[in-house]
C-alpha cells in the first residue's frame, strides 16, 4: 500500500514539472499585464531546440539552455507585436502557438526517432533518505529541483524586491507606473521574455528528461493547462505547485492503473481527466468569484499607449 503511494507520488511530481515551470513563467508575464497564449507553441519549440542541441552536441547544459532560449526567442515575437504594434494579445498568442507548432513540425521532421541526450534522475544526498517523502521529492530529475527553487524565487522577486514591485505596478496600472517614471514597454518586454524562457525550459524537460526523444505532439496541451493553472493559483508562483500537482497526480493515477491493470476506470476516461479536471477547476475558481477578481492584474490584456 505504502509502496503504491510512493510510486504514485513520485510519478505525480515527475509529471507536474513541465506544467509547473510553464505556469510560473506565465504568471510572471501576466503580472506584467500581458496575456501570452503562446505557451503551448513556446513549449514545443523549447522541446525541439533542447532535443536538437542535445542531439548535436551531446552536452546536457547546452541542451537545456537551447530549450529555454528558443522559448525566449519566440516570446519576443509576441513582445514585438503586442507592445510595439499593439496587436490583439489573444489573437497574437494564438498565432504564436500556431507558429510554434508549425516550426516544430517543419524543423523536427528529421529528428523523429533519433536518440538524444537524456537527463536522468539523481538522488539528492541525505534528503532522498527521508522515508517516503525523500523517495517522492528527491529522486527526481534536476529539472524538478530547479522548479522547487524557481517557484519560491519568483515569489520572492515578485513580492519582496523593487523589480517585482515595478513588474506588478505595470500590470496593475500601466499609466500610473509610466507617470512614476517606469519604462512600461521595457518592463513588459522583459516579463514576456522571462515567461518565454520558462516555457522553453518546460518544453526541454519533456524532450530531455520526462519522455526523452522527439515527437511533435509531445506537449499534448500542457501549455494550455499551465495557462488555466495561472488562474487557479491566483497569479501566485507559490500556489503554482498545487496546480501542477493536480495535473501530475491525475497523470500518475493513469500510469498506476495501467501498470497494475486495474480496470475501474476505462483508459480513455483517465486520459481525458487532466483536461476535464482543469475545466472543473476553472469553473470552481471563477464562480467562487471575489478572490480571483481581486488577484487578477487590473491591466491584464490592456495594451499601453500614452496617446490614448
Amino acid at each position, binding site marked *: 500500500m505504502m509502496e503504491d503511494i510512493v510510486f504514485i507520488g513520485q510519478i505525480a511530481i515527475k509529471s507536474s514539472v513541465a506544467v509547473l515551470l510553464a505556469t510560473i513563467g506565465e504568471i510572471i508575464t501576466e503580472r506584467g499585464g500581458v496575456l501570452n497564449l503562446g505557451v503551448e507553441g513556446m513549449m514545443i519549440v523549447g522541446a525541439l531546440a533542447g532535443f536538437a542541441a542535445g542531439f548535436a552536441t551531446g552536452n546536457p547544459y547546452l541542451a537545456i539552455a537551447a530549450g529555454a532560449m528558443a522559448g525566449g526567442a519566440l516570446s519576443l515575437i509576441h513582445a514585438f507585436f503586442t507592445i510595439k504594434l499593439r496587436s490583439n494579445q489573444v489573437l497574437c498568442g494564438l498565432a504564436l502557438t500556431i507558429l510554434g507548432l508549425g516550426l516544430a513540425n517543419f524543423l523536427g521532421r528529421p529528428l523523429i526517432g533519433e536518440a538524444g541526450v537524456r537527463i536522468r534522475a539523481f538522488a539528492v544526498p541525505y534528503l532522498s533518505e527521508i522515508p517516503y517523502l525523500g523517495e517522492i521529492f528527491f529522486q527526481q530529475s534536476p529539472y524538478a529541483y530547479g522548479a522547487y527553487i524557481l517557484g519560491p524565487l519568483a515569489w520572492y522577486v515578485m513580492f519582496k524586491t523593487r523589480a517585482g514591485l515595478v513588474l506588478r505596478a505595470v500590470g496593475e496600472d500601466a499609466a500610473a507606473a509610466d507617470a512614476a517614471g517606469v519604462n512600461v514597454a521595457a518592463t513588459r518586454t522583459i516579463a514576456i521574455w522571462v515567461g518565454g524562457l520558462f516555457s522553453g525550459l518546460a518544453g526541454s524537460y519533456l524532450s530531455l528528461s520526462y519522455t526523452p526523444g522527439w515527437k511533435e505532439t509531445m506537449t499534448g496541451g500542457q501549455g494550455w493547462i499551465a495557462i488555466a493553472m495561472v488562474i487557479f493559483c491566483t497569479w501566485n508562483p507559490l500556489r503554482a505547485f498545487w496546480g501542477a500537482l493536480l495535473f501530475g497526480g491525475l497523470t500518475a493515477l493513469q500510469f498506476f492503473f495501467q501498470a497494475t491493470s486495474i480496470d475501474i476506470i476505462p483508459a480513455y476516461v483517465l486520459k481525458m481527466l487532466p483536461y476535464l479536471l482543469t475545466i472543473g477547476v476553472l*469553473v470552481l475558481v471563477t464562480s467562487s468569484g471575489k478572490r480571483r477578481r481581486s488577484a487578477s492584474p487590473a491591466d491584464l490584456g490592456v495594451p499601453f499607449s500614452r496617446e490614448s
Partner: protein
Amino acid sequence: MIRLVKKSEVTRYSGLNSVAIAGFIAFGTGCIIFGLLGVNPLTAYTVMFKGVFGSFHSFSEVLVKATPLTFTGLAVAVAAVMMLWNIGAEGQLVWGGIFAAGTALFLLPEAQPYMLIPAVLVTAAFGGMLWALIPGVLKARFQVNEILTTLLLNYVAIIYMEHLFYGPWRDPAGFGFPGTAQLPEAAHLLRFLGTRIHLGFPLAMLCAVGLFFLLNKSSWGYKVRVIGKEQKAASYAGFNVTGKTLAVMAISGALAGMAGMAEVCGIHYRLQTGLAVGYGYDGIIVAWLAGLNPLFVPLTAVLLGALFVGGEQLQSVLGLPSTISLILEAALLFGLFAGKAMQQYRLVFIRSDSIPERSPAGRPE
C-alpha cells in the same frame, strides 16, 4: 528610432490592404525559408502556383480543402463578432464527424440517400452544437473564460473519437486498422465533375451567405454585433447577453460540426485518424483574414486551401516538407497584425537626439 503615431482617420478598403500586407509578409517569410533550405524561392513559388492553378483537377483540390475551412472559419467568425473566442472548432468538428458516422453506421444504416443525407447533416450540426454549448453554458452562467474551455475540450473530443475507432466502433473486418467500417453508400455526399468536390462545398457557400444576412441584416445580428463592440452598453440597453452567448455558441458549434460531417461523408467515408488535422485552428486564421465578414470567409478559405495544396506540391516535386505551409499560415496571421498596425498608425522616423523629454501630462509633444 521608430515611433507609431495614430492616424487621424482609417483609410477606406483598409481590410483589403491588411490582407495584401499579410500576403506580402507571408511571401517574404517563404522566400527566407526557401533560401535557407537552399531552394530558389522563384522555383518553389512556381511549383506551388502550378500545383494550384496548373490544371482544373489541382484547383478542385483547393476547393476540397476550402470546404471544411469555410465551415470552421464561419464558426470562429460568428463567435468572434460577439467577442467570444471559439478555439474549440476542432473538437466540435470531431463531434460532428462522430455524430455523422454514428448516424450512418448505426442509427439509419439501411436508409435511402434522401433520408440519410439530411439526417447526417442535422445530427452532425447537433453534435457540434452540443459540444460548443458546454463552454457556452459555462461562459453564460459562470463567466468561465471560453478560450481555455473551448480549447481544452478539443483534447477530450479527440481522445473520445480515438477511443471509438480503436475500440467499440472499430471495423471488425479492418485487419486491426484504426477506423470504423465504411459508411453505407447512401451517406456519401454527391461529388461533382469527376473531382472530389462534394455537396459540402455548395453547402458551405450557402452557410456563408446565410450567416452574412443573419449577422448584418437582422435585428438579432445587429444586437450580437453591438454586444461584441460594447458589452456593457448592450446590457444597459437591455439586450439579452446570456441568451445570445448561448445562441452564438450553438450556431458556431453547429457550423464546425458541419465541417466534420463534410470530411467524414464527403472525403473519408469513415471515422479515422485523418479527421482532426487542425482545420479547427486554421478556422481562426480564415476568420480573421476575412475581417470576420462571412462573405469573405470562403475567399480566405480558398487562399488557405491553396497554401495547403501548394505545400503538398512542394513535397512531391521538390521533396520539401509540406509542413512549410503551417509556417506560412502563421506568417499570414502575423502579417495581418502588421497590416492592421500600419493602417491605424503611421511609422515616424525620429532622430534619437530629437526625442522630446516626457512632458508632465505624459504626452510626447
